């Protein structure tokens, strides 16, 4: 489903070139849930950005759902994202001027799907926030906001879901609830889940764990 070949990322700063990704080869298969773990600054989020086509590497190739996204321009990548990819972010990334329901409708509207309102309402119900449909993000708690974000990610019905520290901004109890929701919906929809976290408990719930360390990636053998 996702494959990288010799994926490299370098940034040049004042003190010279800094290599963030040192030629990563990896593959993630359809339906898998994979955790990318590692300490802060190890390049986890950068890798996630590359895999999801949010960013371009210095060199190397990334294949997403069979398409070499590193060969597409931003215009084509955006269209591909709209079809293939859903996101959950650490800081929720809800649009403050839209209600909970409207935030869930966003990817549907972007795709031009039919009856976005009905489908978004169903997804809000599935995350247990039917009663909060007309609330604005600022009127919701952190946990509720992240549940709206989860509903938005699944509403696009994309086969691949990327989650960047989905519980990072939440207390452990709320985080656990959101994680439960994320994994159960993932199972029900059969999506491929790629999750970046430094929370070992969350990582442990995935089928596979990959550890980023000093710009390289290695498979963590599971007990």
């Amino acid at each position, binding site marked *: 489903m996702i494959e990288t070949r010799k994926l490299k990322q370098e940034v040049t700063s004042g003190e010279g070139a800094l290599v963030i990704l040192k030629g990563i080869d990896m593959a993630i298969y359809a339906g898998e849930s994979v955790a990318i773990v590692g300490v802060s600054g190890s390049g986890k989020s950068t890798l996630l950005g590359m895999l999801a086509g949010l960013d371009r590497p210095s060199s190397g190739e990334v294949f997403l759902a069979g398409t070499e996204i590193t060969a597409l321009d931003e215009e084509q990548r955006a269209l591909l994202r709209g079809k293939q990819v859903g996101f959950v*972010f650490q800081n929720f990334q809800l649009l403050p001027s839209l209600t909970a329901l409207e935030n869930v409708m966003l990817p549907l509207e972007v795709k031009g799907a039919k009856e976005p309102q009905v489908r978004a309402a169903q997804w809000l119900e599935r995350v247990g926030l039917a009663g909060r449909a007309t609330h604005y993000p600022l009127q919701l708690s952190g946990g509720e906001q992240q549940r709206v974000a989860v509903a938005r990610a699944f509403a696009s019905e994309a086969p691949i879901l990327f989650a960047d520290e989905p519980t990072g901004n939440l207390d452990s109890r709320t985080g656990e609830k959101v994680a439960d929701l994320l994994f159960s919906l993932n199972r029900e929809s059969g999506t491929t889940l790629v999750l970046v976290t430094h929370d070992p408990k969350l990582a442990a719930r995935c089928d596979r764990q990959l550890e980023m360390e000093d710009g390289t990636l290695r498979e963590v053998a599971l007990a």
Partner: protein
Amino acid sequence: MTLSVKSDALESGASQSRSARSLALKLLWRDWRSGELNILIAALMVAVTTVTSIGLFSDRIRNSIQDEAGSLLAADAQIRSRSAIPISAELRQQAESAGLATADIVTFQAMSFGNNDALQLSAVKAVSPEYPLKGELVIADQPFGEGRSVQTGPPPGEAWIISRLFLSLGVDIGDTIGVGDANLRVTAALITEPDEAGSFFDFNPRVMINTADVEQTGAVQLGSRARYRLLLGGDVEPFKAQVEDGLRPEYRWADVRDANEGVTSALDRAESFLLLAGSLGVMLAGVALALASRRYASRQLSHVALLKTLGLTPNAIARLYAGNLLILGVITVFAGLVVGWVLHWAFLELASGLLPRELEPAGWRPLWIGLLTGLVCLMAFAFPPVWVLRQVPPAKVLRSELEGGTLSQRVVVAIGAVAVVGLVWFYSGDVLLTAALLGGGLIALAGVSLMAAVLIRVVRRYGSRLGTTWRLGLSNLQRHSRQNAFQIMVFSIALMLLFILTLLRSSLIGEWQQQLPEGAPNNFAFNIFEDEIDGFQGILDANDVQREPLYPMIRGRLTEVNDEALTDRLDRLQPSGDDFRRELNLTWSDTLADDNAVVEGDWWEPGDAERNLISVEQEFAEQLEVGLGDALTFTIGGQQVNVTVKSIRSVQWDSLAPNFYVIFSGPILDGAGAAYITSFYLDADQKPLLAELLRQHPTVSVIEVDAIIRQIQDIVGQVTVAVEFILGLVLVAGFIVLLASVQATLDVRLVESAILRTLGARAALVRGGLWIEFASLGALAGLLGALGAELALAYFQTEMLNLSWTPHPLLWVTGPVLGGVVIGVIGVVSTRRVIKVPPMVVLRSV
């Protein structure tokens, strides 16, 4: 595989654009409701409103003034024959086929005969039935009686004569007088002719007859000194363009501009001012718009990144935001046009007491200009930051520190400067004014930003000894010193523009009103002979009448300049104005009148009276290319008089005191044959004194110029009202800039204050710190604004408006105080949220 995705992507792109549109409208609606777009809308609205209402207002006033000035010609334009050649029928034909109304005037001198063998040389004016095409002809049923206005001149067989001629001819209404060989019945007293300004110095009393009776008088024959005028009414400009170049040398085109120099120079100055004010208003609004748009765009950065992760393409993003801005812009521009119209209308209603009469309607042009201004402002100021949103990297959702999708300040300033220069050039069509504004603007930008940085450092160094609150406020100032230097620059330029306009306005209005103070002379008297001086002055002085000095006056022709015949010289130079071949009124005087100023050379020294020197008027000197030391030859009373130019004077022609092109240093031909001229002021109650004066001095000619004075005063009144109104609009624009500029840095300040609050700072400390920060910013800006305004005013007053330079000491005090208070209040009010709302809410919402 890749190919199929691409074609798939294209299909999906089409459906994306459809549904993205409804999303876009929803986002627009929400942003509008949350007040996010308020400043942007207000700024655009003010730009359009200012330009539209200035345009409508000045268009209407210009039309009215033209209409009024037109009445001074009794037409929109005249074609005058310099010599006794009738205007060709062909020219009249051309005018009529160009859709213009025409009328004829023939003026000539003829003897009038009254009862008991009384006779008087009179200035006959024969008019065709269409006369006057503009303005009012006023007659009365009794000499010196109550006037009523009429639409046409006297019918054939009748004559209208001015009141004093009734006395000198010993006739009454209904009597028959002889005009040359014609016998005509006197049916009315002529009170005012619209175009009498042109006949100021017709010495002899006026008799108005019908053109049909001219032949019968026998006074107009080959070689006689008749003058012909063809009056034109309607839109004369196209016709002027068509015929002016091919006009025979004997003919001269005269239009509104020539009708009254005083009025047109006041009008020109008012137009320059309004133009300047309007341009500055647009500049201010443009800055506000740019700031507001930049802030709006920067608040959209993370949203754009999110929308991109959801699959919205860069093109769709550009379409979404650009489309929204366009919708918003077009609605706002049209609203601005409507508001501009309503404002100018409401203001005219309010000012209706001050205005003399209903103004002429405006054309479409102001609305077009308003529309264009709005669109240019939208494109140049609001569009760029929004357009580059397409470049926001989608990975910004993961790492918010990622840059991209914003424009550098330099690019923004460059685009804005091009737009402003383009607009000013478009409004004024004046390269010089545009260049002055551009140059001044660049110097102001560079100077102010440099000085702002220096001032911030100085204030920080010495101000922090004043206590905790001060230290906090001033360290804020220093911490964002680059941003604050920019903000001071914006503030100070806004304040500078406001100071300039306010001060220019007072000096302009003051000067206009000074030109025609209460009691400006409203009567001219001439043909006062030496032995009548004492008696004439005696009557005026006994009745406490304010009067100007008496000047001797003698008629003479200029014949040679530096041994070149005047005719040859005029043909060579082809001056555009007066024809100096005519008889000129010459005088001599040992004192320089208050409304004259020597601009080159020196006024008389003792002993000059015997040296045959002259002082010539500036325009006269320019048109004839006469300079200091040149030798001029006049023919006066059949004798040649050789003189040398000693000085060149500027003359304030609109002062309504007697003024002369040429003043001699001593009596001309020993004073033989001179008659005296003066002007004096009579109020309405004193008018009967005129009849008394004329009874006792029947040979003296008096002309009443109340109508002209009233016209000039009306115009000054209208222009003053316009200036006040425009200033008000520009003030609003300035206020919006200040607001936009404070808003631009609001987020940072809110966050910092919220952090301070979480660290336990009391509300009073935070509020005090903000007060000090904003007030110091404002005071520094006010100081720089005052400096800039003083420099700019010196330039405008001396170079552009032909006024003299005066310093404004008060400005240096009010500038900083006003800046401090206004910016302080705006700043503290805008940030009041930080004290009222729990800090966590502030931190979460920003």
